[in-house]
């Protein structure tokens, strides 16, 4: 049977979930990451190298095209070894494995990568579901506990002088263009994706955001690799949802609200975007509490 390679969106999403798991606590980490890998028999025997050394070797081999085929088996040994060490070694190893899967299509299509994703995918999805319900409750609690002043400050945009802001944005777009050009010349479309994603997530809700220029870059890259735009949007949605849930766990309401707004600006109500309904639920909670506290007029004054 033909092996279906791991997709970029799968790898990015699983990596975000592992990061969330890490800040959730040891018990969840053990249940949703350690146990599934252990039950799948990916544990020990203790290897000659430490997981740290394997990580260095994987990073080194990624620079050498002739060694790409040997990286996935090496990653498997790295994860098996990390299982005999400590939770942090395991997390780092899993994240590196997912990163190289994300970066190199050859690795994404290897037997070890597909098996690895198959092992961790379902437990992490289960965690995601539980976590999502918990996040909604935590979010509601955090917004309820917020003082009116804090809530107003959460909505307050950073105002620069319009001209200065425009000049700054032009410079930033120019830098982005140069960096994307250089990455695409060397065929590194993953880097292009990262650069664009970081830029859009940072500036999309700004008044002076250079929408046309950024869209042009995306269209050009889509011509080089069909599906580029869809993958970029998918990764950004996962990234934003991760930022939002992380902010909720850290009780950082300002960041939570900013993430919701960015999500709305970027995806413009596209129902195919990952986490579309989850974000909508949290937003309803937010507006309900703002309205109950009678804060809307105060918030609008801060705009």
């Amino acid at each position: 049977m033909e092996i279906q390679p791991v997709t970029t969106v799968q790898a990015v999403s699983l990596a975000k979930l592992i990061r969330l798991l890490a800040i959730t606590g040891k018990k969840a980490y053990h249940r949703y990451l350690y146990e599934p890998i252990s039950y799948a028999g990916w544990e020990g025997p203790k290897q000659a190298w430490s997981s740290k050394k394997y990580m260095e070797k994987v990073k080194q081999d990624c620079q050498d095209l002739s060694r790409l085929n040997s990286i996935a088996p090496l990653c498997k040994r790295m994860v098996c070894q990390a299982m005999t060490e400590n939770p942090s070694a395991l997390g780092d190893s899993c994240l590196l494995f997912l990163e190289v899967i994300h970066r190199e299509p050859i690795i994404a299509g290897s037997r070890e990568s597909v098996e690895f994703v198959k092992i961790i995918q379902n437990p992490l999805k289960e965690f995601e579901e539980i976590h999502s319900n918990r996040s909604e409750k935590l979010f509601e609690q955090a917004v309820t506990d917020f003082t009116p002043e804090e809530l107003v400050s959460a909505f307050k945009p950073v105002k620069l002088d319009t001209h200065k802001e425009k000049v700054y944005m032009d410079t930033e777009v120019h830098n982005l263009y140069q960096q994307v050009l250089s990455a695409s010349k060397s065929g590194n479309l993953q880097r292009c994706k990262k650069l664009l994603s970081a830029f859009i997530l940072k500036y999309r809700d700004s008044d002076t955001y250079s929408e046309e220029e950024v869209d042009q870059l995306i269209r050009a890259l889509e011509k080089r690799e069909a599906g580029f735009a869809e993958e970029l949007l998918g990764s950004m949605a996962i990234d934003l949802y991760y930022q939002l849930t992380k902010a909720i766990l850290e009780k950082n309401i300002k960041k939570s609200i900013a993430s919701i707004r960015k999500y709305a600006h970027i995806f413009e109500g596209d129902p195919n975007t990952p986490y579309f309904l989850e974000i909508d639920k949290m937003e309803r909670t937010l507006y309900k509490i703002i309205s109950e506290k009678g804060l809307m007029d105060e918030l609008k004054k801060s705009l």
Partner: protein
Amino acid sequence: MAQPILKISESKQGNVLVLALSGELDAKTAPDLRTHLDNSIQAGAIRVVLDCKSLTYVASAGIGTLNAVQKALVQKSGQMVLCHVAKDIKDTMDLMYFTKKVKVFPGLEEALQAF
């Protein structure tokens, strides 16, 4: 759980398409409105009034949809305007910066005069 409801009633006032919205415009209902508006635009409508008299809630997913439609209309030298927007809904639109991109009128007559 109750099904999300957004009722869309369509009428024509000269060359202006008037859509009266009733119910909630959120992540669950926004795709229906998007489909409706996309079909209308494809059929040639470029001047649109959204009558929000009976709209009871709007979420960013709904505003995002309206934003995308407004962009498409502007590209065709058209536009979408809103009327009868309740204070709560207008407040949310203000917070999402949507009222910077679309004109809001108190009544339908004023909205029709915008074209």
